[in-house]
């Protein structure tokens, strides 16, 4: 796991450098992220379970990039392997951007998802978007690698609108932080 720790450290520094206003909080978030154990997780498990994940019925949104396949409005999109919340793709944002007028949380929980196109494991940061009430569209809950509140950095039940102007939760993104495993 040492390569993952050093990866997380690099990410922490990078993120801290790029967000001056909330650098301290980002650093805390990064430190938490760095402490996480990062299993390489299975993906593409469509769910119609108790906590959400039914087909969204939205018109498909694809990136157009064959290396990033799938529909970002559907719970089985590869990056959503440990997400819990409303998909920002259905709320005015995308898998990697928050909807207009919301604020992206600087600290969050992470998962590791395998991209079926290039078969790489990516570290995905599930930053919440904050400051408007529950989006209400495309609820998706997948729990690969999720752990209870006792390990917050691996827990997707927490409202990660922390360090934001408002703690009101709107939706969740799934941002690529980098490749999880160094390729030899």
């Amino acid at each position, binding site marked *: 796991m040492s390569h993952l720790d050093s990866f997380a450290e690099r990410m922490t520094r990078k993120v801290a450098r790029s967000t001056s206003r909330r650098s301290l909080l980002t650093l*805390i*978030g990064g430190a*938490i992220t760095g402490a996480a*154990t990062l299993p390489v*997780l*299975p993906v593409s*498990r469509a*769910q119609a*379970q*108790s*906590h959400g994940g039914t087909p969204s019925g939205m018109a498909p949104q694809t990136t157009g990039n064959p290396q990033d396949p799938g529909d970002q409005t559907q719970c089985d999109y590869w990056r959503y392997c440990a997400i819990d919340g409303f998909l920002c793709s259905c709320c005015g944002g995308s898998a990697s951007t928050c909807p207009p007028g919301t604020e992206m949380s600087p*600290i969050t929980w992470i998962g590791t998802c395998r991209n079926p196109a290039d078969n790489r494991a990516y570290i995905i940061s599930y930053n919440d978007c904050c*400051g*408007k*009430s*529950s989006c*209400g569209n495309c*609820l998706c*809950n*997948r*729990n*690969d*690698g*999720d*752990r*209870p*509140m*006792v*390990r*917050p950095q691996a*827990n997707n*039940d*927490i*409202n990660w*609108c*922390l360090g934001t*102007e*408002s*703690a*009101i*939760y709107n939706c969740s993104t799934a941002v690529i932080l980098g490749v999880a495993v160094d390729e030899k």
Partner: protein
Amino acid sequence: MRRAASRIAIAMTIAALHVAAPAIAADYPQPLPEEPVPAVAVLPEKYPESWVFVHDLHFNSLPDGRVAVVDVAAENRNVKGQIPAAQFGNVLPATTRPEILVGETFFSRLTRGERTDVITIWDAKTLSPKGEIVLPGGKRGLFVTLKNSLQFTNNEKWALVFNFTPGSSVTVVDLDARKVLSDIDLPGCSLVYPTGPRGFTSLCADGTMTSIALDAAGRAGPTVTSKVFNDIDKDALFMSPAMVGRTAWFASFTGNIRGIDFSGAAARDLGMFEIAKPAGGDPEWRPGGWQVITADKAGLLYVLMNPHGKEGSHKDGGTEAWVIDPVKKALVRRIALKNHSVSIEATQQASPLLVASKPDGSLDVYDAATGAFQRTIVGVVHDPMTMTAAR
């Protein structure tokens, strides 16, 4: 508007009378009595043991969470009333006085503005707010409802509030004096499990637990940290235990049961035992759902089980409730649930009922002793995550 609406209503009533009156009036010489307004229902001070608090996370509108008070034994009129619980609220019914505590969070402009965290004290009889204690620092933990983020200690004279910023801490509140007594940092630990006469335990990220005794002023006193017992990577404990007296029974992700005795000043690990797994799992039976374990008054445990258990299935809900005798460490019987369920709660009656909440917000009620299905109660809440039986 209202006057116009009443005029229309009266006009419609008169019109209806003209049509229906001649044939029926002779059968009913006396008209129905006039009814007084305003008229507002009240509840008993002490709720019957067939009543259950059903917490509604209301994920589609989190600032507007609520709690439904439900009589699960009644043939009709099951919903007795509602209590607001804003923004990842918590509900904690008192047993020593007719009050219900709600931990909640508000913003002055609903979704923005100044944040205020409070414990609101509701009168059990009128379901009206009778007081509040403002919690400092805007740090009350906001996450999908867990009962152990708001708990009593000191014979219900004090409340313990778990904070998460993402730094962890606990605020100790004097409910009689309506004031905050202390804030206690809890680096690396989560939630509060009341311990001993005056204190609490938290579960920690390194697999240990830390017990903190409180002095008479609510400050942290002697602290005891246990050995590592919670294997969070391979077989994490669900955070919400079933309580039998002061003994907590935790279910683990793979289906083991661990007892922890919280009666002394420091929590004591009672060890873990395995639930013998019958065949039929695909790939295996595991606990699944949100509130997956509950206990009746006799001390039997009920565990919500999912036949499709595997890594990541722990919140998927379940299709059976397994009845476990923790003294004999044995599976006593299995209750096949009519529907896929999210959470379970046993009432504290001598003949308990088992309540299973469903993703659509309705409840199924079973005779806990026989497993016989009794009724479905629809339209209770939106997202029934936790339930608390009246005691």
